[in-house]
């Protein structure tokens, strides 16, 4: 859970930084998207690095979902008779929404790949012009896309708030002071990532990026 999660978090950071290049203008962003296909050349043939990265990410996603499913099945088996009266949350809300939050994020990622990677669900869907695709995607008339996107990012933020802390704990974070630091770091990290991912659609929505 922790190891695959950390791999995905590394991707999220890199992807967020890449997305923010949208503020540097159309040419720079499209150039960046094309460069993604050339990383590793001339050592590797073009797009090989991308495919290696995609393979690693897919393995991490499958590992992450596999471990989560195992934990959920164990949890279900560990309490065959449910409580008639159950206090909802004593600990952290984020921790209690990990499973459904994860499902929402997965649905979003599938939609998102069909939208911006393959272009099938994108109004423009031009593989040569990712900048145009993003702008067309979050156009004000398509507010529902932005809404769904925002919900998915908030779910991601909650997921990371608990996930980042929990990963550190699973890897042996063990002092009370360290726990306070780890929780604070996870919170700040989740907020920064949410903000970084949300500025792009809202910049398109408000016409800052056009």
């Amino acid at each position, binding site marked *: 859970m922790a190891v695959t999660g950390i791999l995905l978090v590394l991707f999220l950071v890199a992807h967020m930084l890449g997305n923010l290049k949208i503020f540097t203008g159309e040419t720079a962003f499209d150039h960046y998207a094309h460069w993604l296909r050339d990383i590793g050349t001339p050592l590797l043939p073009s797009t090989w690095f991308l495919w290696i990265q995609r393979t690693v990410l897919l393995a991490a996603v499958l590992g992450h979902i596999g471990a989560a499913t195992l934990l959920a099945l164990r*949890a279900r088996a*560990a309490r065959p008779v449910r409580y*008639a009266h159950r206090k909802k949350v*004593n600990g952290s809300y984020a921790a*209690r929404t990990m499973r459904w939050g994860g499902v929402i994020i997965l649905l979003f990622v599938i939609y998102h790949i069909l939208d911006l990677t393959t272009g099938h669900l994108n109004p423009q869907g031009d593989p040569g012009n990712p900048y145009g695709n993003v702008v067309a995607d979050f156009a004000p008339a398509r507010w529902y896309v932005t809404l769904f996107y925002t919900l998915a990012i908030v779910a991601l933020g909650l997921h990371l708030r608990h996930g980042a802390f929990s990963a550190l704990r699973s890897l042996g974070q063990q*002092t009370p002071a360290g726990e306070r630091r780890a929780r604070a770091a996870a919170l700040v990290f989740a907020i920064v990532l949410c903000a970084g991912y949300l500025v792009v659609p809202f910049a398109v929505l408000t016409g800052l990026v056009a």
Partner: protein
Amino acid sequence: MNLTLRIWRQSGPEDKGRMVTYQVDGVSPDMSFLEMLDVLNERLILAGEEPVAFDHDCREGICGMCGLMINGDAHGPQRGTTACQLHMRQFSDGDTIDIEPWRARAFPVIKDLVVDRTAFDKIIAAGGYITAPTGSAPEAHSVPVAKADADAAFSSAACIGCGACVAACPNGSGMLFTAAKITQLSLLPQGQPERYTRVIGMVDAHDEAGFGGCTNAGECTAVCPKGIPLNTIGRLNRDYLRATAKRGGTPGS
């Protein structure tokens, strides 16, 4: 105070069980929660009915026998207290109180609110001990222990094995209990020889007993009557990672 109680009644392990509603009146706010159940039971006995079975022993928060899910809260609404230390002044006249046993596959219901916590004994038997002969209390200065370690070990040793952590855990995991025992022993010099076999043995016994896996949700520490902190689980994880990395921890190798 007049109260409506909805209590889980189950005549034995094979019975399906159900919530049954009782009225109790004349409850004093100074009574403990268990005394209130005693009052109910006396009336049930006088009426020729079967009294409600519940576990208890010391009634002062040190033995870990009592354990009730009270309105969905393990040990009731007051933090840092066992059910036996809970007073009726925490409730108001006219309240409805739901009382259920701990729910976990590893803690099967024996009768009504009494569950079988043998699974905890199995975890202890798998490593919750030291092999050094300790005899009577040794001279305190003969083995130096850093004050911070002594304090952390001591507060982990406060775990009374009540099982509230399991009852509250969304995963039905017993990791807080296991981690409290691991922390207590692996912080002290006397606990070092078995340090790495202990953690593997206890975690294996925990999983075999049918407890769920920990996701660091933190519900356990919120209800723990002894305030065992969640970071003990980090200590367990670290010992576990080390133990699996160095196979020297395997007996005979």
